[in-house]
């Protein structure tokens, strides 16, 4: 599988650039069988196909994310991994063994539910102790490990509280501690941060990744928040109406989306219909609706005449005053119609002379000035050939 090898590459790259060492040892010597393998799984509800021929292999120690719009089948897939639902076709294997005959309570897989699903009649400590007691651990061990786990999530002082006495973030941490306390092979998290406010959400994201790296437990994380997925994940499977559109590392998903859906779903991007005029080994010449003739990096096997999508990230475009001569081959003129100032960067919406919209993003990095252009400014936009992307539809 090509995905698995690119995962290893990315892991090493992350190690180099960010200094992670925790999971390197595991990922460099890739296990002969993946921890979890989803093999051509399909799930139908009547005529409706909720999960459509999905194949995914998750490696040990990975932070794996299922990302996609509402209703694309993320929860359905997660429920099949946990054992609450069965595939109509295909197999789910854990450590190479088919899980079909293993009920949820005997799978070494725990779930953190979006609503937390804490037991309201149990204290925080009793909630966290629950999986240990179900596993039949001796009372002393239960008490000790519950205490340890509460320490890890900084809730020791709430051990005797009931769930209704906790804040959202605290409930979240109890659910996490409960899911992790007896060290499952796999932790499934179904939009666990969805109910938190923005600031708490960022805090919990940080805690989540640190916890995952420290414990080395494999996470499968479900979200429809793209930035969350990019920030947290080792790999992401982007899903759309039951299918996996792209399975890759965050930088590849963002930098080289495989099709229009992925490009559009992840981050901001300019998208235009286009067709190929000519191809060569150095570049692709495109005819783009509203932009005219544009050069893009070469693309394997697209003959002249192929229709597709031209995509360009706003941060890859440069804006200069119209009076200043553009230096790059790809350039167009227009007028600033709107801008969204968010402090560190400003996104400019530009009406090109041809009438189409174009977004360009500029860092507000010059000292002493908040931003570079004002409404109505006459500008030129330009971008290097290699910034553009040709996508099949």
């Amino acid at each position, binding site marked *: 599988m090509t995905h698995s090898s690119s995962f290893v590459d990315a892991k090493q790259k992350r190690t180099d650039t960010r200094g992670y060492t925790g999971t390197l040892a595991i990922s460099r010597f890739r296990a002969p069988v993946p921890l979890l393998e989803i093999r051509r799984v399909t799930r139908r509800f009547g005529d409706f196909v909720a999960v459509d021929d999905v194949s995914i292999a998750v490696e040990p120690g990975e932070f794996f994310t299922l990302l996609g719009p509402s209703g694309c089948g993320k929860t359905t897939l997660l429920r099949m991994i*946990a054992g*609450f639902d069965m595939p109509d076709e295909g197999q789910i294997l854990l450590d190479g063994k088919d899980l079909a005959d293993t*009920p*949820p*309570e*005997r799978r070494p*897989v*725990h*779930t953190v*539910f979006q*609503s937390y*699903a804490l*037991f*309201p*009649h149990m204290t925080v400590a009793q909630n966290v102790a*629950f*999986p240990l007691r*179900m*596993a039949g651990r001796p009372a002393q061990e239960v008490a000790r490990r519950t205490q340890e786990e509460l320490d890890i999530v900084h809730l020791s002082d709430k051990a005797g509280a*009931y769930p*209704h006495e906790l804040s959202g973030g605290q409930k979240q941490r109890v659910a996490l501690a*409960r*899911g992790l306390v*007896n060290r499952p092979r796999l932790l499934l998290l179904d939009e666990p941060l969805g109910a938190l406010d923005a600031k708490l959400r960022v805090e919990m994201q940080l805690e989540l990744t640190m916890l995952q790296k420290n414990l080395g437990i494999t996470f499968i994380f479900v979200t429809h928040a793209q930035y969350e997925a990019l920030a947290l994940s080792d790999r992401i499977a982007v899903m759309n109406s039951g299918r996996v559109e792209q399975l890759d590392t965050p930088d590849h998903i963002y930098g080289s989306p495989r099709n229009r859906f992925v490009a559009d779903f992840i981050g901001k991007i300019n998208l235009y219909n286009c067709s190929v005029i000519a191809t060569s080994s150095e570049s692709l010449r495109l005819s783009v609706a509203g932009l005219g003739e544009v050069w893009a990096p070469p693309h394997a096997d697209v003959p002249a005449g192929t229709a597709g999508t031209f995509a360009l990230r706003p941060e890859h475009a440069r804006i200069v005053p119209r009076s200043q001569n553009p230096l790059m081959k790809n350039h167009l003129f227009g007028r600033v119609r709107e801008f969204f100032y968010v402090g560190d960067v400003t996104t400019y919406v530009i009406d090109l002379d041809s009438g189409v919209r174009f977004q360009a993003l500029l860092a507000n990095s010059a000292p002493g000035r908040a931003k570079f252009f004002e409404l109505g400014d006459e500008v030129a936009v330009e971008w290097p050939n290699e910034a553009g992307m040709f996508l099949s539809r």
Partner: protein
Amino acid sequence: MADAMKRNTSSRLTKWLVAGPPLVFLTLFFLLPALIMVVASVRYPGEFGALAPLFPTRPGEEAGLTLENYGVFFSDWIYADIFAKSFGVAALTTLLCLAMSYPLALLIARSPRRHRDLLVLLVILPFASNFLVRVYAWMIILGPLDLLFSRFAVIVGMVYVHLPFMILPLYTNLEKHDPVLLDAAQDLGANGWNRFWRVTFPLSLPGILSGSALVFIPVLGMFAIPEILGGKDDWLVGNMIKESFLGTRDWPFGSMLSIMLTAGVLAIAGIAAWAARRVTVHA
């Protein structure tokens, strides 16, 4: 400031308007009669039933207040015995109702939503036929089996009549349980029994308590069923009270029995509430 005070007064007024009518009703028709009963239980019986006057109208007549009735109650084991028997029957009926209702209530609560209302309707359907008719039906069933006029027949009748009062509060409670809690329990390693015993059951304790109260208390006062289905030995407190008022026409004695019954129920309710506080915790 003035605004806040006005708002405060008007909200208090609303509160009184809402709470007022039931309060007046309960004071007039519950609290007052209860007080009359207390007073009646310390008076002498009238010569031809009812109560003797508070002040003697002719010499030698028994009048005024007395603790004699209570004295009688505590002087003979027979009353304590009947009380114990009654509480025993009530407890047994409650347990049997609970044992029979729980699975049914659970079944209804977990059946598809569109079927639930119909099933609940079926549970309360027996109320549509007359109480006496339903009890007499048991005579026809138990008679040929030679089980009539026995403690067994009394219990059967009691359980039969009070079953819906247990099923409904249980169902109302169980229906509110969040199914994701059972998923979570199963996900964390709980088998079927543990999912019931550690999640469903503790969460249903409030339902069990209210259902039990709704069965236990009416059974204590019930006289019709022992009278129809039971033998002479199966008389309960309810029969004694009824007999005091309608048979021997000794109102003060009947009042005393009622007061003692109420005291007993309150004592048990107090113990139950105390135990519940220790067990149910926060739900």
